[in-house]
């Protein structure tokens, strides 16, 4: 019996991620944008984005994320928010907070924005601003987090966790409570894009991770005891697992990302795969979702080689993440090497060992900016 029937009808995309731009004033060394973002083509226009949103909603998407890069760089953001809200999306703005102002918070609220997520790099200004590559980032983030809360939005704070800030976990949690956050995402780096390039300098050791995990669990228990609604979501790196995550809930099953230049992707890092992905400038979203070779590439399970092909877990995890398989084994068809059945699992083990001994300082990381992007791809 094949639990995952390749001929099963494909459901609609329920989540649309609109990566409005790759421009960003910050330079996080763990940025998930492609390394070669600096040579990406023109951004979609306002009219093109509004059309993409309309098509996505018609297909069934209900959740919409505006991200980037830094989406606030787009001068038409309020217009896009208004358009999206009128279509019936639940609209999420995922921002670094740089470029936000009280006036914009109010304008977005008037346009119908449902939620603003602000990301922090650390719990103190020195480390935060060193990681972000900006000397005023932390102060601005604090001010904007307060403005967002004051405007009545649900407050979601996001911290990307790695070996240089993981020791701050208790302070991070205190800061979130002071800011009266409703949700806190503590997302350990996922190693794609710039983060993969900087993996050795970012990946926490197992000991660091376990310590942070128990701090989060203790804090959560205390919140629960007080009946406090602040919700903590700790995403641990799958490099410390022996079975892969069910990446994106299955390729082309729920998520649809549109990159700044209109490239449509089943996940925001899929761009690094050697697959030709369609573009919304030349194909309708319905055609892209249901019929394009790019989106059908890893649907079902007919593409799977061993050990996944004969594995009883293939309907649970879909063989893991295609990008991770590609980055670590050179072939995106392979089992995600996080899986201990993968013949390449030793590469994950080697990364763990490296994390135990890494001495990389903040200065050794490759920061995400246009200059470094061009240096990497001088071609």
């Amino acid at each position, binding site marked *: 019996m094949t639990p995952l029937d390749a001929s099963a009808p494909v459901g*609609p995309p*329920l989540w649309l991620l609109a990566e409005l731009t790759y421009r960003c004033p910050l330079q996080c060394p763990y940025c998930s944008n492609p390394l070669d973002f600096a040579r990406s083509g023109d951004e979609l226009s306002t009219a093109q984005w509004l059309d993409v949103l309309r098509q996505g909603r018609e297909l*069934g998407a*209900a959740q919409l994320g505006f991200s980037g890069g830094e989406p606030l760089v787009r001068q038409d953001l309020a217009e896009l928010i208004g358009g999206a809200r009128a279509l019936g999306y*639940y609209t999420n703005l995922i921002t670094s907070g740089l470029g936000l102002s009280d006036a914009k918070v109010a304008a977005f609220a008037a346009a119908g924005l*449902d939620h603003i997520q602000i990301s922090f790099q650390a719990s103190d200004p020195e480390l935060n601003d060193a990681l972000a590559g900006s000397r005023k980032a932390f102060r601005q983030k604090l001010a904007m987090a307060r403005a967002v809360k004051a405007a009545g939005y*649900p407050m*979601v704070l996001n911290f990307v966790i790695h070996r240089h800030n993981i020791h701050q976990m208790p302070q991070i949690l205190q800061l979130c409570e002071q800011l009266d956050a409703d949700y806190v995402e503590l997302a350990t780096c996922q190693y794609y894009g710039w983060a993969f390039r900087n993996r050795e300098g970012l990946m926490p050791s197992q000991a660091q991770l376990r310590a942070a995990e128990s701090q989060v669990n203790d804090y959560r228990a205390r919140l629960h005891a007080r009946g406090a*609604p602040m*919700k903590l979501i700790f995403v641990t790196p799958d490099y410390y697992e022996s079975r892969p995550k069910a990446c994106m809930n299955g390729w082309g099953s729920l998520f649809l990302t549109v990159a700044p230049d209109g490239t449509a992707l089943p996940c925001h890092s899929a761009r690094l795969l050697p697959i030709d992905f369609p573009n919304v400038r030349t194909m309708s979203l319905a055609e892209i979702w249901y019929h394009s070779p790019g989106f059908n590439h890893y649907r079902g399970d007919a593409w799977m080689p061993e050990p996944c092909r004969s594995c009883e877990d293939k309907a649970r995890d879909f063989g893991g993440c295609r990008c991770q398989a590609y980055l670590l084994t050179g072939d995106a068809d392979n089992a995600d090497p996080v899986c201990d059945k993968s013949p390449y699992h030793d590469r994950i083990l080697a990364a763990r060992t490296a994390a135990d001994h890494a001495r990389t300082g903040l200065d050794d990381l490759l920061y995400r900016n246009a200059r470094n992007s061009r240096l990497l791809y001088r071609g």
Partner: protein
Amino acid sequence: MNPVPRIRRGFRLQWEPAQACFVLLYPEGMVRLNGSAGAILEAVDGERDVETIIERLRTRFPDAGDLGPDVREFLREAERQHWIEWQ
């Protein structure tokens, strides 16, 4: 005064034709509701108290028997999930 539930701020209940069900939308998340959960939350408008909600559902579903205990239990669960607040 009887307690009045309302959908928590930042949450939105919405009928989704593509999924043929009510969904509850919140920051970066979505819960698909089954028929009865959808019907109960649809009656939560920030003005009706629990008795009025039950009464309303009784009128809508006259053959459903005594809805009271199920509705109260669901609202308690919705509160635990922080989907609703009391005012």
